């Protein structure tokens, strides 16, 4: 079947074991205020427009009802935009990009399999990420199964919000889970991501019971989810389930998402400087004070 994907990236060495190819799926049910992939939020294609590249030449106005110029400056009415992609062909400065396109799982596998020689020497494979893979469950499961049949080891990076059935099937395929925990406190979780975390934690505990291969990832966002109490709760959770995951790592906040937000015409709900070295060392010593071993993704 077809899925909506927005990127296939080779030589990813920080998203699971060995050298991996990451397939990024469009669409995520969560709305984390710090999201670093805002272009992935909607399930449908998104128009990205880089105004730094635009010379306001007006070529892209032809045949496009979503575009006008005001005082020589190009304006885009995003409601009107059909994401037809004509502007991407016409624009001589490559200022436009339609993010996300439909692709059959078998076609995606054709791309992924290209790097099999590297997976074999490095112990790597495919990582499905996003967006949120469980938001396109059938497509993700088909892709994982196809990859597995092709002798490629598989992983997904997930926020844990998918249905239990999805995780049951994924674990049966021998998937490694890069599992996000954003906040333990349910109320704060809802505030920061738009959703409760009861289901997320329950899925994680299920996977732990099943003996799945799990790597815990904790995006830590200054002044959002990094209070002493937040970290104490995270540490408590990790300590309690210590034998049930391979390792846990901190993903420090950075501002990568802000530039992307501008291009897709939305305002970042959270604007902050990237996590500093001081932030990171504070987090590490807090975890250490609880006797919890964590890695830092750099």
């Amino acid at each position, binding site marked *: 079947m077809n899925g909506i994907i927005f990127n296939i990236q080779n030589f990813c060495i920080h998203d699971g074991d060995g050298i991996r190819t990451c397939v990024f799926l469009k669409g995520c049910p969560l709305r984390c205020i710090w999201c670093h992939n805002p272009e992935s939020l909607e399930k449908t294609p998104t128009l990205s427009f880089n105004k730094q590249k635009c010379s306001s030449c007006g070529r892209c106005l032809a045949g496009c009802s979503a575009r006008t110029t005001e005082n020589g400056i190009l304006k885009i009415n995003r409601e009107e935009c059909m994401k037809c992609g004509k502007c991407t062909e016409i624009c001589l400065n490559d200022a436009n990009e339609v993010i996300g396109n439909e692709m059959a799982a078998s076609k995606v596998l054709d791309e992924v399999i290209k790097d099999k020689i590297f997976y074999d020497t490095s112990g790597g494979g495919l990582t499905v990420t996003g967006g949120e893979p469980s938001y396109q469950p059938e497509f993700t499961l088909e892709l994982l199964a196809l990859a597995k049949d092709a002798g490629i080891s598989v992983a997904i990076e997930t926020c844990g919000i998918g249905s239990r059935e999805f995780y049951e099937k994924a674990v049966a395929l021998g998937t490694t889970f890069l599992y996000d925990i954003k906040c333990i406190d349910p109320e704060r979780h809802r505030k920061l991501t738009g959703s409760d975390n009861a289901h997320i934690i329950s899925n994680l505990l299920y996977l732990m019971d099943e003996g799945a291969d799990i790597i815990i990832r904790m995006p830590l966002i200054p002044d959002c989810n990094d209070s002493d109490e937040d970290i104490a709760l995270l540490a408590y959770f990790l300590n309690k389930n210590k034998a049930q995951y391979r390792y846990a790592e901190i993903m420090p906040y*950075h501002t990568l998402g802000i*530039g992307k937000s501008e291009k897709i015409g939305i305002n970042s709900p959270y604007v902050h400087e990237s996590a500093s070295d001081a932030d990171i060392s504070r987090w590490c010593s807090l975890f250490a004070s609880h006797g919890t071993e964590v890695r830092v993704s750099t």
Partner: protein
Amino acid sequence: MTDIVKIDPFLYGYFLDETLEHGERVGLALLYASKNIEIKFSRRLLPETAFESKYGSSGYSPSEGLWVSDENILKLTEEFPEYRETLNKYLRELKLFKDKAKRLFCDSTETLDRSGAEWGGGWGGHSNPDYGRIINYGTDHIRSIIAENRDKYPDEAWFYRSCSYALDAIDIIGERYRLSALEKAENCEKSDDKAFLLRVAKAFETVPKKPAYDFTSAMCSFMLIFALDGSDSPGRFDQYMYPAYSKTENKEEISDLLDRLWDYFHDHRSWNLCISGSDENWNDESNRLTYDILDIVRKKGYNTPNLTCRIHRNTPDKLWNAIADTLATGTGLPALYNDDVVCAALEKIGIPPEDSHDYCMNGCNQIDILGKSHMGLEDGEVVFAKCLEFALHNGVNAMNGEKVSIKTGDPRTFATYERFERAFMDQLEYVTYNSCSSANTYQHLRGVFEPHPFRSCLIEGCLEKGRDYRNGGPLYNHGQILAEGIADAGDSLYAVKKLVYDEKKYTMSELIDALSKNFEGYEQLHHDFKNCEKFGNDIENVDWITARALNRFFTVLKRNNTYRGGVFTGGCSTFNRAAGYGCQTAALPNGKLKGEPLLADSIAATPGRDTNGPTAQIKSVLRYNHTDACSGFVFQNKFEKKMFNSEKGKASFIALAKTFFSYGGQQYTVTVVSPKDLLDAKEHPDNHRNLIVRVGGYSDYFVNLNEALQDNVIKRTFTEI
């Protein structure tokens, strides 16, 4: 009155007996120089005599043999009026000699050469003489080889005399160092230095006449050879130094000597030093010295000498890890070569395994067999991008309208893509042939006019055959022509195929008009051609066209013999010349603008056009047959220094390199992204679309980052280096 022999001992020796053969006179020049040139020590007290006269009027270098500076001789005539007549005579005679050389070998391929399509034989080149022949056996051993062979070739008696002079010269310098070290030690106040100088003096009682007995004496021998060979390429240092190394118990003595040597390399020029490798049965030849060398390279962080490490199917993990640790320093050293491919390539041209496994690098990355070959280094270059320009313009240099190459037809009339590709291949063949032929002309000239008695003593075959190193003496005498701008030609061919012949989006006439006007007024066309699929992204259709072009080049080369008695083979390493060739190339269907200083980075993509990451780059270049290349076939991946700071990053690098090698890759170099790269990427994003950086746990293309983040990464990179 100063004696003329002190003013310029080279010329004095050379003009001592004008009735002798040129080659013998060069030997005499060396002999008189050895007795009279200044004896110097490096700041770390190693012998560092440069083979040139005190006033820079003449000297002896590996690329030119005996050289003369007209300007400095003229200065001498003013400083020493009493010798004006003699010096003027020297100058006159040498000028006559040079003119004779020029007359005999007039350059017939000048126009093509000047167009920036090729060159051949313009310079003398690097070499890998067998240092071990003197270090481990002594000059007396070489004298015995001369004695065994000289009677077989009575006509070449002058050649053997010349080689004997060269050997005497090195012994004389050794003896002068012994005396000088003693004298220096006497006046030396620092006890460490004094002890070191006395050890040096003692070593020169034995070397270079007799075999070295420990690491210090081996180092003394090494320094003399290195100086006399023009500070070129030490070759397989960890192999020929190992016998002396293993006789030395004192580990501090060894690390102290390596420390001194690396400072010497850093202060002076030095080219290529090679470590590790395999024997013909694939046994690993790395030893303790191999690791000591990686240690010193890490410790010093110098970018000279160019360190090459030979990898093969049995390279131990311990060595791989030491390599990754060394690369983490950010100097890009060592470069890795794959024995499984290089030896296969050498065996294809008839070099047996026992010799192919003794290959090493000289200069930047040209391949030679240690002490057994003269493989050109390099003989010439062919610019594929320019050949494509000729095919588009029917043999005309589109930069100036000059007709310089063969007519292969007006492409506007070509009905099929295949016809166009044939026109390109014909141009490529013609230009390649010209490069070989021009290289041979110069090789012949050098063979006759630039004898090299010293290298002849250190390269097997010369003394055995009574022939100079430059004149077919070595066991192997193949040539090396380098390919440039391969991907630019491949990308252009593919764009023509796709947009003109397959999709028929544009006609050939439109394209040629657009190219002739440097795309002015053809912006949409330019955009479409520029955004067409490019080599380096693991896209089979583009890659195979590119590989086909290179394949033709290798086939043509092997049909050409070298003057010195081998065949031509090829390789590809652009150094920084690609930019120069780009300037001499007109607009091309890959979107390149007229005179734009941008051509492919050796065997890889045109800078910035490979946007699918290092694995795709590797897959693309693996579509070439690397066992066709007997000269360096250079492939570079650029990484952030950060990658080597983590165990995961190092392991990933090792996996990449191992995969590349086990699927037939020949050479792998890692360069580290510099602040300069990043500043340039900010200004010219188009040329750096392949640059991946890591930001807070995520990788992204640098050019996709917003300005604030870009500045952040730049700042970070500055502090890392």
